[in-house]
């Protein structure tokens, strides 16, 4: 934005003063935001820790994502040593078909997993865990995803079940609970959802009342859809507590560590699910469960923030686990496609089948890149907030994984549809991905609104001025917009002399830059049009989220492929090919979505969709007359 301002100052003198004023004030506002965000660092100009949020302003933080995050050689060897036995275990001793059929994970398998240390991957070593970083956790998630039920059991245990104690627990709580949890002796569960409360924390009914002696909280209520609910010994339960806020008694949510040994906890029978049947999901009821006051996580009334932190931190591993599953599927499916012959040609010579394989490998490539990029960003010092990027990885991976597994099943045709092959089990296991850990719809809203909030804070000054009638500013912006419409190339520093992207991907990088700039303008326009009420415009927000996910995906693949070709990894030319293919496809899709976000475009049929939905939902059925109907 500042470079654009420079060019305009050279071109037109009449807007010179306005532009200077504009740039100066925006920089000022931007710095204020920076200072608020990064109070831990003491320099005034510091590394911008947010990547995705800045995309909303049309600026690309290339230092965050280029070069692709690497780990040292020793670390890599360490991971490979960890990975080998786990892979062996999964390929030899895990019978996924049996787990699916009996809807239960056998004891020996669980024991094997505990011995491999898979129950305490992120627990620090002093408490008995493996103390792995996010990247290593993502690497191991690639392997555990070979069996969906086991992956979900492990994730429910460590990614959400014991995360609360890990990130917000006191030293005493950690000492007491983490060792047993890390070894797998106790299994953890995360109890937040209730029949009336999925995303709405205000409708949580479970109550925790302080007993008379003030030493215990009594928890009453019930939770549903709790993974590991039947066998968990330690649960993180969220309940309403009465808290004094400025003298007014309010109900706020608090987090408690509840042991099954406290008594009063009953688990219902396991739910009969479509997929991940081996994972134990059931209803858990609490009847006057006494919880000592020391077991409150964080402070009383601070449960909401803890819940949000826990939920936001575990998502990125879905990218690598989906990628692992798809890679295995590609191997199995291509074996079949190469051997099966019809019309004297093997299936792999037919274009439509080739397209399916291309789609599968492309998706696997992108998911991996995004997941490890996010994990790498999270592992950097400075505690960056990568919840937005993690949410994007989750949305992208869950949807693409469903498509890929479906295509793999399609290649096998009728064989894939039978239970003799594992494809239908993969398909069923995969269906839960867009649903749990935050449904994709809700996460799209999160992605779009977080970015809009960030962009709104920075551009609010500008937009307010224009709405107040500051003519000079309005004219300045108008001239800038017209100038920009005529310039078809934008330079954000990805290519060229100091470019971070390898020259073989110059075109894709240019497409990314163009998209980012257009996206920034679109966000500004949307904020101007809707202001506060954009929270209700879900059609627009969905497109914003989709564009942003595509942009992040493009960055991830560009970054990874640049690194590959620069250091000379095997098959880097294939990676370049995948990158260029995806970037051009995403570029056009983004352009179309950005076009749809403009006002009154023919590509945007949102008003019609709203009307159709209103009419159908009013009648709660399909309202058209039957095509065979007559009047006379």
């Amino acid at each position, binding site marked *: 934005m500042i470079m654009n301002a420079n060019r305009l100052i050279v071109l037109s003198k009449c807007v010179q003063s306005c532009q200077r004023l504009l740039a100066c004030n925006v920089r000022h506002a931007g710095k204020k935001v920076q200072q608020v965000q990064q109070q831990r660092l003491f320099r005034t100009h510091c590394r911008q820790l947010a990547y995705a949020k800045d995309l909303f302003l049309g600026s690309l933080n290339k230092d965050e994502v280029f070069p692709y995050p690497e780990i040292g050689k020793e670390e890599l060897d360490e991971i490979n040593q960890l990975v080998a036995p786990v892979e062996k275990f999964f390929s030899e001793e895990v019978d996924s078909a049996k787990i699916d059929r009996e809807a239960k994970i056998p004891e020996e398998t669980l024991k094997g997993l505990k011995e491999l240390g898979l129950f305490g991957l992120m627990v620090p070593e002093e408490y008995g865990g493996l103390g792995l970083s996010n990247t290593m956790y993502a690497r191991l998630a690639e392997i555990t995803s070979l069996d969906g039920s086991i992956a979900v059991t492990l994730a429910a245990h460590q990614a959400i079940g014991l995360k609360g104690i890990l990130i917000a627990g006191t030293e005493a709580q950690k000492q007491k609970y983490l060792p047993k949890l890390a070894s797998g002796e106790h299994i953890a569960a995360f109890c*937040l959802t209730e029949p009336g409360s999925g*995303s*709405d*924390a*205000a409708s949580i009914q479970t109550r925790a009342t302080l007993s008379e002696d003030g030493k215990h909280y009594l928890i009453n209520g019930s939770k549903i859809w709790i993974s590991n609910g039947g066998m968990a010994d330690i649960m993180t339960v969220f309940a309403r507590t009465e808290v004094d806020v400025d003298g007014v008694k309010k109900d*706020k*949510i608090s987090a408690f560590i509840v042991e099954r040994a406290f008594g009063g906890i009953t688990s219902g029978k396991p739910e009969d699910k479509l997929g991940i049947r081996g994972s134990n999901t059931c209803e858990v009821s609490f009847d006057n469960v006494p919880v000592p006051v020391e077991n409150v996580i964080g402070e009383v009334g601070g449960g*909401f*923030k803890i*819940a*949000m932190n826990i*939920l936001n931190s575990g998502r990125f591993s879905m990218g690598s686990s989906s990628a692992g599953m798809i890679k295995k599927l590609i191997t199995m499916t291509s074996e079949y496609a190469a051997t099966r012959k019809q019309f004297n040609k093997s299936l792999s010579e037919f274009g439509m089948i080739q397209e399916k394989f291309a789609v599968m490998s492309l998706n696997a490539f992108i998911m991996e890149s995004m997941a490890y990029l996010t994990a790498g960003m999270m592992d950097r010092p400075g505690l960056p907030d990568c919840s937005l990027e993690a949410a994007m990885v989750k949305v992208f991976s869950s949807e693409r994984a469903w498509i890929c597994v479906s295509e793999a099943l399609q290649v096998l045709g009728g064989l894939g549809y039978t239970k003799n092959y594992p494809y239908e089990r993969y398909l069923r296991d995969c269906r839960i991905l867009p649903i749990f850990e*935050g449904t994709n719809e*809700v*996460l799209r*809203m*999160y992605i779009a*609104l*977080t970015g*809009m*909030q960030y962009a*709104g*804070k920075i551009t*609010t000054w500008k*937009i*307010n001025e224009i*709405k107040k009638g500051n003519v000079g500013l309005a004219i300045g912006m108008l001239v800038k917009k017209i100038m920009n419409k005529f310039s078809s190339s934008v330079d954000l520093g990805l290519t060229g002399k100091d470019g971070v992207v390898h020259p073989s991907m110059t075109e894709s990088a240019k497409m990314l830059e163009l998209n980012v700039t257009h996206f920034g303008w679109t966000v500004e326009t949307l*904020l*101007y*049009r*809707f*202001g*506060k*009420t*954009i*929270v209700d415009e879900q059609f627009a927000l969905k497109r914003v989220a989709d564009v942003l996910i595509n942009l992040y995906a493009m960055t991830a693949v560009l970054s990874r492929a640049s690194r590959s070709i620069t250091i000379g990894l095997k098959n880097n030319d294939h990676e370049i090919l995948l990158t260029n293919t995806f970037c051009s496809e995403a570029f056009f899709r983004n352009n179309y979505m950005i076009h749809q976000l403009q*006002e009154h475009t023919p590509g945007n049929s949102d008003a019609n969709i709203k009307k159709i939905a209103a009419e159908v939902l009013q*009648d*709660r059925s399909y309202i058209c*007359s039957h095509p065979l109907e007559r*009047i*006379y």
Partner: protein
Amino acid sequence: MPEFGVERDLAVYNKLLDVFPKEVFVPRNAVQRMFNHYPRQQECGVQLLEQMEEYGVMPNVETKVLLVQIFGKKAHPIRKYQRMMYWMPKFKHVNPFPVPLQLPEDPVDVARFGLARIANDLDAKVTVYQLPCTDITETGEEITIPHVVGIQSPSQMELLAKHNPNKPVFVEGPFPLWLRQTCVHYYVLRADPPEEKVEEPYDPERSLYYPLRLDVDFGRDLGDEENFDVEDLDEGPVFAMCMTGRGDQATLNQWISGLQENNPMLGQVPTLFRVNAGPQELSASADAESGHAHRPDTETRSEEKLQRDGEPGVIVEEEPQRRQGRNQ
């Protein structure tokens, strides 16, 4: 035809048309064609078709053949027929809330249909609080117990639960509802609109996944303002409706106590009955000729009763009768 009840019978209309002699009224040369050949007969044909249209009877191929045989291809009746065949299908389904031709006989079913029609809410539940029956007491008198059918939707129940117990709720009625030829009357339980709109304060810890409100200072742009609505007047919430056979205090009390089972709030809120006398026959009045043109009113305000549950004494207050004379 209505006397015989055949006004919607197409066969009868065709038979009537058959009465006309065929080929007599068909014009045979240019002069006859020019000068409205047999005008009265053509008018008669057109009136028959008019009556068919009035009763919504769609003519038949047989009708067309008859008309062509009787009047020829370019006469007024055939033109009328062509217009009917064009317009009637277009208007057949134009009413989104049609009333069936044959209303059910049972008053409870009529009440159910009428209440569902007024409420127009798929969530609303119709409850029959009392079925009509005739009892004979020991003294040989016949006591008829009227039917009481009420309707309430879950959102109305929530509104009632949130109602301020200091403000009264009113039972008003009876209001007429015409269903084709029958008129039924319904009573409404409503309250006055709240003085100030209480907006729930924004709770930043409400949604676990995304912010429900953005922290920007400005609202929507003028071009996208969609919600100025002239009719957005608040007339006060309506909590429930009912239809009964006899609109007196006892029956309405029964309705309210029936409602109370699901809405415990009704026990604490004062309920005022603002019930009119209901539809009555115009009495053949001897004093109708008084010069002041006071007519015996069919709607007079009866006493308002203040009703609090649990209180044995019923306070009856007479409000000065307000006249609603029509010839003031």
